[in-house]
């Protein structure tokens, strides 16, 4: 077993091998497995006995009122926050609690933050080029060549995020929604296995929301996608399975209709949300 492990971890020596021969073991189904995770800040339990399983290729929406622990959960997965107890596994081989942030990122967990940050002076194409998984030391970067292979990869992602026509435009002129897509594209350039997307449609127009829904549902299957979102209409339009968080633990899980009809969920979240909306 240890021999097998030493052979398979060679992807860390050869960066380019990582995407083709991913070491993440998903034979047992789940790509992310969180069990009995708790974390408290100064006595306040932000996460309380959280159990969550994400299957490989799944698109999962996570909803919950403010303070439910959604962002803290993402921080734990990406290694930014250490839980007090519990276990977090990526596939059935990698214990994320023993890894630091850059290692987790290079393992294939990409995270998109709420506020889009793209390099405004660079073109859309160049933004994707910089984000690509590559040797990022000084001299390899200085002498880096633009090969047909890299171009194809960038064009592929440009197609996915629907910015082909704008590829030579500076990212600064993009609309808010287009910047969000570009940022998702920058994550895709790193060929992640699991995408964590925080509030992707905040501040978007209806049309932009529709396109984002298409983009995210299109990604599922190739990647696993976890979306944290407040907008119920948007969640309804993309969700196959929804998890409701409340006070740091899972309140309900299931299809949107199942969840929406759950009385406890209606009480803590949907009811309140409808009142706000009204």
């Amino acid at each position, binding site marked *: 077993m240890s021999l097998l492990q030493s052979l398979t971890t060679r992807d860390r020596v050869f960066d380019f091998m990582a995407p083709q021969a991913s070491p993440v073991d998903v034979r047992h189904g789940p790509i992310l497995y969180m069990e009995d995770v708790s974390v408290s800040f100064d006595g306040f339990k932000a996460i309380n006995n959280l159990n969550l399983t994400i299957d490989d290729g799944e698109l999962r929406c996570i909803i919950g009122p403010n303070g439910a622990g959604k962002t803290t959960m993402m921080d734990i997965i990406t290694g930014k926050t250490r839980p007090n107890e519990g276990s977090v596994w990526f596939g059935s081989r990698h214990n994320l609690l023993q890894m630091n942030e850059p290692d987790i990122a290079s393992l294939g967990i990409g995270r998109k933050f709420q506020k889009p940050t*793209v*390099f405004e*002076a660079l073109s859309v194409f*160049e933004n994707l*080029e910089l984000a690509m998984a590559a040797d990022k030391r*000084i001299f390899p970067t200085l002498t*880096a*060549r633009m090969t047909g292979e890299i171009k194809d990869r960038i064009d592929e992602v440009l197609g996915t995020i629907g910015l082909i026509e704008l590829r030579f435009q500076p990212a600064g002129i993009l609309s808010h929604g287009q910047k969000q897509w570009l940022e998702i594209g920058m994550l895709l350039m790193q060929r992640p296995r699991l995408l964590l997307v925080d509030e992707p449609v905040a501040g978007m127009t209806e049309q932009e929301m529709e396109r984002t829904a298409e983009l995210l549902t299109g990604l599922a299957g190739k990647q696993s996608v976890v979306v944290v979102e407040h907008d119920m209409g948007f969640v309804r339009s993309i969700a196959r399975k929804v998890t409701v968080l409340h006070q740091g633990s899972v309140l309900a899980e299931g299809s949107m209709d199942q969840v929406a009809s759950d009385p406890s969920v209606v009480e803590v979240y949907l009811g309140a949300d409808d009142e706000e909306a009204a």
Partner: protein
Amino acid sequence: MSLTTESSTNFWLTRPFSERSTQIFLSVLLAALALVTILHVAVPPDNPLHVGAYTVNLFGKYLSYALLAVAVDLVWGYLGILSLGHGAFFAIGGYAMGMYLMRQIGERGTYGHPVLPDFMVFLNWDSLPWYWLGFDMAWFAFAMVLIAPGLLALVFGFLAFRSRVTGVYLSIITQALTFALMLAFFRNEMGFGGNNGLTDFRELLGYNLRSNDTRLGLFIATGVALALGYILCRAIVTSKLGRVCVATRDAEARTRFIGYRVERFQLFVFVVSAMLAGLAGALYVPQVGIINPSEFSPIFSIEIVLWVALGGRATLYGAVIGAILVNYAKTIFTGVMPDAWLFALGAMFVLVTVFLPKGVAGLFRYLKRKTRDDHPPKEATA
């Protein structure tokens, strides 16, 4: 010069040659060098078109300033590091050259000492300080022209960038650096000639510095150095590394987040820039015949930044235009109305900031876009 084949555009050092702006810049520079040379050599002195030795020397000085401005534009325009201390690297390169030129004087000094420069004899020193050893050899001195400023930038930059000192704080520290060096070099005990600096140079590589031919040679050498420095900087900014620099300038945390060790990139570019500034200083000193601590003065470093701002940031050729324009204006003003120069410089800066926020280079770009919009080319541009 149109090397637009796939292979040449892909090798980082030759990539600039396929750029239109570089082609134009190099053509103009080479034409100017050739023109001045011809007007100096082939046109008889009584002809009004003749360019005198004094003017050739003056142009050589402008070109060394232009190289210095390119070095500043590399770190300020593309990396976003506003260095208010680049004069220090320029001066150190100049001192390295000055030390070589002092050693070349040999026994012909006022005191006739075979080894010690005049000021050391005057201070009653009986042997050379250790850091003057080796400067009698040209190769060593010329290497030091690059190594000494590069080393200072390496140590300074390592400490600053590792601690993530950026923005206005870094500007202030660079300013303090050059000010501290100025005070240190003013002291006689430092062994660099104190207040008077190094002067009375005679020969460079055996050529008499006072002859017109040597002056022409230095002018051409400075022009060639400017061309090479420009190509190097252009190669850096058109590479992927250059795009990482721009990304760092605009969103440093984000660049770090996608996996680049930002502080190493900053350090690399800062050191390259300091070495180019040192080279500019080394070419400047034999042309003006003196190097003294005033080159370390903070005011000079701020002036360099003004040249770049006037010419247009983040274009490189703008820095060249700015350096030459401002210094030409300075020559004229200090000749006609010496007291008015600082007012004129201030007025130029205000006018350019108000009417040409992107500098003279920005005006070029605007005119180019305007003519293209007025007469759109046949094939639509993507």
